[in-house]
């Protein structure tokens, strides 16, 4: 939804008449125009802030750009990017999904139970994701067909799923099937291909995140689905009048969001080798995902947003956490900084949005 290349032409035209006499100022104006265009891109401001943060940590912490730390950083942001990408679709749609916290918690338990039933890993993970998709379907139907506000619908499913997780697991930590386990007889740590692909491999989550974000960004900007999602989020009545199947679009996006949350639940459980039924942690995961989406430039009001921005927003949050941890900042300060960062990001977004409308950059 950001401006396309041909907008430069129309805006640069007024300076064109006296190009020869005022060559230098014109080049300067052109450069400024580019900077302005970049800043007014939906992802522009958070990209600049993220780069600035990286430079700051890089200069003040020599270890920040070490391979070891970058690998640590991945564990902070890649999975968050996937969650935020799904949430962005619903937020553009004018809805919100709070149940991703519950799905995130519930999915690995489903996987555990299915594997426990004697089904191999791959079909088990597929069954798990289908279960998550059905949860999204329920969210979608209750919201779009029965007319319950999505905040309330998903608040309900959030608690329901968290409760179910606690009941089924007896609130006890479980070992994630397929993850790195120490063989009791040989004492060696074993990790299969399945575990490596589904979260335990060092770059597994990053690859998942990049692939998912690229696909969703293409879906958002280049397909009918994305166009209709924006249309419904921007003006539900007009979209319906034009023939958009509003309910179907909303339900579909709930299903995608929920499935991605389930995938992230499996990936994270695999990475940490354990299923930890802790609703508190899940709720914080949910809020981080929404924060990443919002910081990335997606409006809660619906009608506009960016998947790439959500990934960058997640990277920003991850870097903040990682950098402050290395700096030895008291963990208590983390939420404080995070809160301030969200407020500043939102103020910038409001300002940039206004500038964008005024300057005519699409």
């Amino acid at each position, binding site marked *: 939804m950001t401006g396309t290349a041909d907008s430069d032409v129309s805006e640069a035209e007024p300076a064109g008449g006296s190009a020869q006499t005022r060559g230098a100022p014109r080049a300067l104006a052109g450069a400024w125009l580019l900077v302005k265009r970049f800043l007014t891109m939906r992802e522009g401001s958070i990209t600049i802030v993220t780069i600035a943060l990286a430079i700051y940590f890089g200069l003040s912490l020599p270890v920040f750009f070490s391979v070891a730390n970058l690998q640590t950083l991945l564990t902070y942001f890649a999975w968050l990017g996937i969650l935020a990408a799904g949430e962005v679709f619903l937020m553009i749609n004018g809805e919100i999904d709070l149940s991703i916290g519950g799905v995130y918690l519930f999915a690995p338990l489903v996987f555990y139970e299915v594997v426990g039933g004697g089904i191999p890993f791959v079909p088990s993970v597929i069954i798990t994701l289908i279960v998550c998709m059905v949860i999204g379907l329920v969210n979608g139907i209750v919201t779009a067909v029965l007319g319950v506000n999505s905040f309330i619908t998903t608040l309900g499913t959030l608690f329901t799923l968290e409760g179910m997780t606690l009941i089924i697991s007896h609130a006890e930590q479980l070992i994630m099937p397929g993850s790195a386990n120490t063989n009791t007889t040989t004492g060696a740590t074993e990790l299969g291909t399945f575990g490596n692909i589904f979260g335990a491999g060092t770059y597994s989550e990053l690859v998942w995140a990049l692939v998912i974000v690229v696909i969703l960004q293409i879906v958002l900007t280049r*397909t009918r689905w994305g166009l209709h999602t924006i249309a419904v989020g921007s003006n539900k009545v*007009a979209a319906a*009048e034009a023939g958009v199947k509003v309910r179907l679009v909303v339900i579909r996006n709930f299903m995608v969001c929920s499935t991605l949350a389930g995938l992230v639940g499996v990936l994270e459980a695999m990475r940490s080798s354990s299923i930890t039924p802790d609703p508190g942690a899940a709720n914080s995961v949910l809020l981080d995902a929404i924060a990443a989406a919002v910081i990335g430039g997606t409006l809660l009001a619906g009608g506009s947003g960016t998947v790439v921005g959500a990934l960058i927003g997640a990277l920003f949050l991850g870097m903040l956490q990682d950098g402050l941890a290395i700096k030895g900042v008291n963990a208590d300060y983390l939420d404080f900084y995070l809160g301030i960062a969200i407020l500043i990001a939102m103020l910038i977004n409001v300002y940039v949005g206004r500038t964008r*409308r005024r300057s005519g950059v699409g």
Partner: protein
Amino acid sequence: MADQVLPGEIVVAPTSADDDVLRVEHLAKRFGPVTALRDVSLHLKKGEVLGLLGDNGAGKSTLVKTICGFQKQDSGQMWLHGEAYEPKSVEQARALGVDVVYQDLALIDELSVYQNMFLCREERMPRLPLLDRRRMKRDAREALNEIGINLPRLDVPVARLSGGQRQAIAVARGVYSQADILLLDEPLAAMGAKEGAMILELIARLKQEGKISIIMILHNYVHVLESCDRVNMIVDGVIAMDKPTAETSVEELTAIVVDEYRRAREAAQAEEAAARA
């Protein structure tokens, strides 16, 4: 109320001919306690431009939204090209060749000009589920040129355009849709005199080509007499008048409306008197 004698030529069931592309019979629609359409019957000939007049709340927009498949009637039937016509969605009606330009235009502020023009009739790449943006932009440009509306850029959100430009986009979207029946709900509402003239000219051109039949809601009698073949007036949820425009005049149309106001006032006074007694 329904059997009350109304002024003008009352046509309850239209005398339909073989060349009717659309026939509507005894259509009724209520929204809770409000009766929007009481008993509407009308017909549309091939290549004809039918003007629909009526007071605010008379049921014009409800009628249009029922014909275009946006909502379903409570009772009554419709025929399209002589066959029973029961559109279940806007998309289905569109597939059958019935398209509409809504009074509220149904434009999405956040989407660009060409995205709006192709909303729900997107052009896609061959063998790929991706939108063919270049082709849509080109075709949108062509459609707008045909109307005579010149927009410098088609990739700006429509939120930034003037009321007249938005209206032009909505009309262009309807005309471009290849429909053979086009419903226009107040197509000149937000337009200046110059832009309005352009739309009327376009309608005249479409009429001349004779391929498309149009039902047009208007409130300006001069526009109706100028651009329509026939005029129907809805009063209180029924068609109270059906005449070729050649046989009526601004004076007659005005007289009907004045008469309607007088009746409404008398009815209100009678009600008040009854309430007092």
